Structures are given as structure tokens and as C-alpha cells.
């Protein structure tokens, strides 16, 4: 009695299922929503009917499959599908009712989960993860929803086997035979009757309640393999097939830092020909200008940036998101990488600086050696003259009437240290930044 009641409900479910799916796509009062720009836009018209004119019929493929139930001494029952290909190279697989059932029972082994996207027909529909499963594939989830929404599970399947059975179909368990020999007989006969009736009527449409879409790159794993057209398309699209493994980013150059140059200048302003102050009754001396500043420090670095191109057809996920030059829809794909240069600028200041005038060593030697022959007792009066210092960010200043008492060449020296930046250390600087001469007036008596 328990089994009779269970079988009654199983048959009730399948009668309901097949009554619902019988109208098929064209007559379905509630057609599935199809994005006309998506992969299914090539397959299904806006009214829900299949756009057969746009599809290439690959015929019915029958082949052994180890995930189908196995007959002792014979081997697995054949899996059977109707195969179509779309203009962009996608494969549409329509398994028969019984094949679909065992596909959904072994979703990984059968390639059910490998489909980029699926589309089902019929009134039984439920969401399972990101997919909406309908018809036979949705039966398990539908049944769970039904029982969870208020129906008394213990009344429908007193021992719970029925619920487990239908849930197992979609959970991927391979042992789906908990229904027992007599229950599975009814179940399989229902599927076979449905298939047989459709075939007898010459109407294969009702037989197929589910469509699975595989992108061109996966046609090798689809029952029946790749069509010649798909192989040709694959050759043409070869660079874009490997959506899953874009090329690795380039190894970009290491970042580097360019320190800003330190600008130093010492200039004689006036007079053009200064006289040593000892011979100048006006004690004019010299006017000298100093200037020091630091240009910004530059940090240069590189980042790998993808090179994206639009490739024909949908990607592995069935998505099209760009247009080819000829108007054909395509998908964006990373085809390579570029190293793009970036710079960062860091301003830098003078931390402190000082300026002085120094008689060159050559001039000192000239005074102490050569000049002392003519002027015995000649000596260095004041060979170093300090001008001043600054702690401003940059320094420009003119020093007037500096009393240069020694003749010869004078170096204008500027020394100090920069402040440094967040990416560079402080730097010392120093040495001659300019030079000028101070003249000695000589009187010679000629016979």
C-alpha cells in the first residue's frame, strides 16, 4: 500500500510534468526570457520559439556514455541528443528526456555542468544556484520546494525516499536507484513512452525539453564533437579561444629615482675690472651675486596594463560585450600586456647654504713667488671672504662692496645641504660656482 501510494504520486508528478512541457517552445504561454544580445539570442526568438532558420542541424547523435545506466553484459545505455550549431559557433545540445534525466543525475560526468548556460521549457521551474532548472532537470528542486512550502512530505512519501530520490537527481549522486526496481520501471517507462510518442508523431520538439549551450572552444567535449564548420571557426578564432588562460603580464622594469639637479651660480656684478682695494682710493671693492635652488626629484615606475581586443562570438560564459568592426557581436579578451610608465614628482628645498670668495691657489702661489720678486715682502692680505648664509628653500642674494685686497682669480663658492624628499636622502653640495679677477696696477720705469 505504501508503495502504491508512492507510485501514484510519482506518476502524478510525471503526468503533470509532461502535460506542462508538451506545448514546447512555440506554444508555451510563458516563454523564457531571452536576452536578444546574449548567446541565446541566436537560438530563441523574442516570442520564445526556436529560431531554427538560424541554426545548423547537426542531427541526432547517439553514443555510449559511461554515466548512463549500465546493462550487465552489454554496457551503458546510449545517450541521445539532437545537436545544433549557431552562426557564432556555439553548440546547442538537446538531450532526450531519459538522457537529460541521467545527465542531471551525473552532472559532472555527463557535461551537464560544463554547459555555459542552459535553457529549459515547461511549467516546472525552480532556481538552483545561478541556474533556473526546468522540466525534468528541475523536477528535484521543484519537488523540494513543493514539500517545503507546506505540503506534508510524510503523506506524499511516507518513508521520505521519494523526496530523497528527486533531490539526488540534481545533487549529482550516482546512486539514484533508491526508488526500487518497481518504481524505476514506472519512471523509465514514462520517459520512454514520452519519447516514443514524440518520435511516432514525427515531432521531435516535445522530446527535447532542455537546451544546453556550449561555446566553440568546448565543442570537443560535446557529444558528437566539433563540426567541420566549428573547427574552421576555431582555427579562425584560435587566439581568442583560450578565454580561461590569458597571457601572463609582462615583467615590467623596476622603479627608479632621478634626483633633481642642484642649481648654483656665483656672478660678478660690478665693476667689470675690479682693482685691489689697496690701490683704489675709493675702496670700491666688488659686487657679487649668488643663486642656489634644487629642481624636483622624479620617481618613475611601471605597471602592467592589459591589452583588450574584441573577439568574435561569445566567451566561455556565453557573454558578448563588444562589437567587431563588421558589426558582429563579440567579447572582450585580454590578448597581451603593456608596461605603462608613471611618474611621481617630489619638490626639494635647500636646507642651508653659505657663500664665500676664495683666492685660487694658483693666485696665491703667484703672489708669494713671482710677485714677491718685484715687491719683496709681498704677502696674502685677505684671501678668504665670507659673504653669508641662508636657510630658505632657495637663495638669491647680492653682496656689495666686498673688499678684495689680493690680486688674482677669485672663486665664488656656494656650499650647503638639500632637505631630501620622501623618496631620496638629503644631499651635500659645495665648490666654485663662478670666478672673477681682481687686478693689480703696476708702474714700470723705462729708460
Amino acid at each position, binding site marked *: *500500500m*505504501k*508503495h*502504491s501510494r508512492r507510485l501514484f504520486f510519482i506518476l502524478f508528478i510525471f503526468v503533470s510534468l509532461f502535460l506542462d512541457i508538451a506545448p514546447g517552445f512555440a506554444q508555451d504561454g510563458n516563454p523564457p526570457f531571452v536576452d536578444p544580445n546574449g548567446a541565446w539570442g541566436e537560438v530563441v526568438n523574442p516570442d520564445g520559439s526556436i529560431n531554427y532558420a538560424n541554426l545548423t542541424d547537426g542531427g541526432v547523435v*547517439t553514443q*555510449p556514455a559511461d554515466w548512463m*545506466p*549500465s*546493462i*550487465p*553484459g*552489454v*554496457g*551503458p*545505455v*546510449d545517450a541521445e541528443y539532437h545537436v545544433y550549431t549557431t552562426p557564432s559557433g556555439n553548440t546547442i545540445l538537446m538531450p532526450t528526456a*531519459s538522457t537529460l534525466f541521467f545527465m542531471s543525475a551525473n552532472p559532472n560526468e555527463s557535461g551537464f555542468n560544463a554547459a555555459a548556460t542552459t535553457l529549459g521549457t515547461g511549467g516546472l521551474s525552480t532556481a538552483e544556484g545561478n541556474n533556473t532548472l526546468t522540466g525534468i532537470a528541475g523536477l528535484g528542486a521543484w519537488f523540494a520546494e513543493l514539500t517545503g512550502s507546506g505540503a506534508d512530505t510524510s503523506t506524499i512519501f511516507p518513508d521520505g525516499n521519494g523526496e530523497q530520490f528527486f533531490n539526488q537527481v540534481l545533487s549529482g549522486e*550516482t*546512486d539514484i*536507484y533508491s526508488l*526500487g*526496481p*518497481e518504481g*524505476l*520501471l*514506472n519512471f*523509465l*517507462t514514462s520517459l*520512454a*513512452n514520452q*519519447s*516514443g510518442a514524440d518520435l511516432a508523431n514525427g515531432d521531435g520538439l516535445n522530446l527535447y525539453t532542455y537546451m544546453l549551450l556550449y561555446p566553440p572552444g568546448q565543442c570537443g567535449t560535446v557529444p558528437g564533437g566539433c563540426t567541420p564548420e566549428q573547427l574552421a571557426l576555431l582555427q579562425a578564432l584560435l587566439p581568442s579561444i583560450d578565454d580561461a588562460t590569458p597571457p601572463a603580464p609582462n615583467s615590467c622594469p623596476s622603479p627608479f629615482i632621478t634626483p633633481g639637479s642642484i642649481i648654483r651660480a656665483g656672478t660678478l656684478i660690478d665693476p667689470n675690472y675690479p682693482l685691489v682695494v689697496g690701490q683704489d682710493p675709493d675702496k670700491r671693492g666688488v659686487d657679487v651675486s649668488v643663486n642656489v635652488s634644487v629642481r624636483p626629484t622624479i620617481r618613475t615606475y611601471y605597471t602592467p596594463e592589459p591589452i583588450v581586443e574584441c573577439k568574435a562570438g561569445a566567451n566561455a560564459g556565453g557573454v558578448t560585450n563588444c562589437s567587431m568592426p563588421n558589426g558582429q557581436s563579440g567579447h572582450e579578451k585580454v590578448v597581451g600586456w603593456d608596461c605603462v610608465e608613471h611618474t611621481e614628482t617630489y619638490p626639494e628645498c635647500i636646507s642651508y647654504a653659505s657663500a664665500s670668495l676664495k683666492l685660487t691657489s694658483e693666485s696665491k702661489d703667484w703672489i708669494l713667488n713671482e710677485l714677491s720678486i718685484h715687491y719683496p715682502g709681498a704677502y696674502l692680505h685677505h684671501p678668504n671672504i665670507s659673504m653669508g648664509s641662508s636657510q630658505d628653500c632657495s637663495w638669491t642674494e647680492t653682496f656689495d662692496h666686498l673688499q678684495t685686497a689680493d690680486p688674482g682669480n677669485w672663486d665664488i663658492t656656494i656650499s650647503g645641504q638639500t632637505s631630501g624628499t620622501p623618496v631620496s636622502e638629503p644631499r651635500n653640495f659645495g665648490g666654485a660656482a663662478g670666478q672673477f679677477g681682481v687686478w693689480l696696477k703696476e708702474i714700470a720705469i723705462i729708460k
Partner: protein
Amino acid sequence: MEITISRNSTVRTFTFAIIILAVIGGGYIAWKTGLLDSLFGQTQTVSAAPANEPAMKSMTAMYSPSGERAEWETQVCIGMTEKGCELFRAMFANPFWKSSLIGKTTSITFIKIADTLEDGSQVWKTEIADSEATLPVYIHVTQNDAGQWLLNRVLFAQEAAKYENQ
């Protein structure tokens, strides 16, 4: 009016109630644990000559595909239930016809009743043998009104594993 209940009467009534409850409880436990099935289910047996049952003849034909396919399918279906024949033609016939069994002659031997189901149908363990090997095969059979055992279908290997492990 004073009602007098004797001590013996009370003990008898109480003992009787205990016995009734024990019988009901024991029966319930036996039913839940399948003890009744194991005790009384075995009373339903196959005939004395199971090889002559239509189911076994269908099995012999099924595992010896030859001649014209349509004739072979008809021959197999003679010993099958209507539903079993439908399923055989739709799902089983093609794999058999394409298998290496074509042209081979096999013999089928009844081994035992592996299971008796609640609707009265049974699972039989048989053994198929050709010149090279033997293979256990479990079949689901149903008794018709005339008492003959008809073949529903051959159990898949996945289902048979359950009985192999028993």
C-alpha cells in the same frame, strides 16, 4: 446498590489487557523491522521449474540477439510485461543489438530469489553463461493472473550492486 468485583476477575482482566498490548506491540515491531516480510514473504516461491517461466525465456532471447531485429525484439517481448516490453524497445534493445552478444548463444540459469517486493513482484538472481564466461544478472519479474512470471526488465549494474552486497 453495591457492586463487588472479585480479585480473580481483576487479575484476569489486567492479564488479558497486557497480553493484547504485547501482541499488538510485537506485531508492530515485527512489521516495522520487516520481520513479517522475512517470515511470510518467503512463502511466495518461484515455480518448481523456473527455467520454463516466460521471464527466463525472454532473458535467453534477450542475451542471444540474432536474425532480424524486429523479430528478435518480438521474441524477447513474448515473456515480458507490457510495460517492460515498452521499456525494452525504447531503452534496452539498441544497446543489446549493438553489443558483442550478436550471434552468440547464451544460457540462463536461475540462481535464487533475491528480493520479494511489497507489490508481489520479485527480483531474481540469474546467471548468464556463454562459451567464455558467466555473469550474474538480476531481473525484475511480475506474476500474471495465470501465475506465470513475466520479465519487467534487467536491473542496471548500479541497482544490482545492492543485491550483490547482501
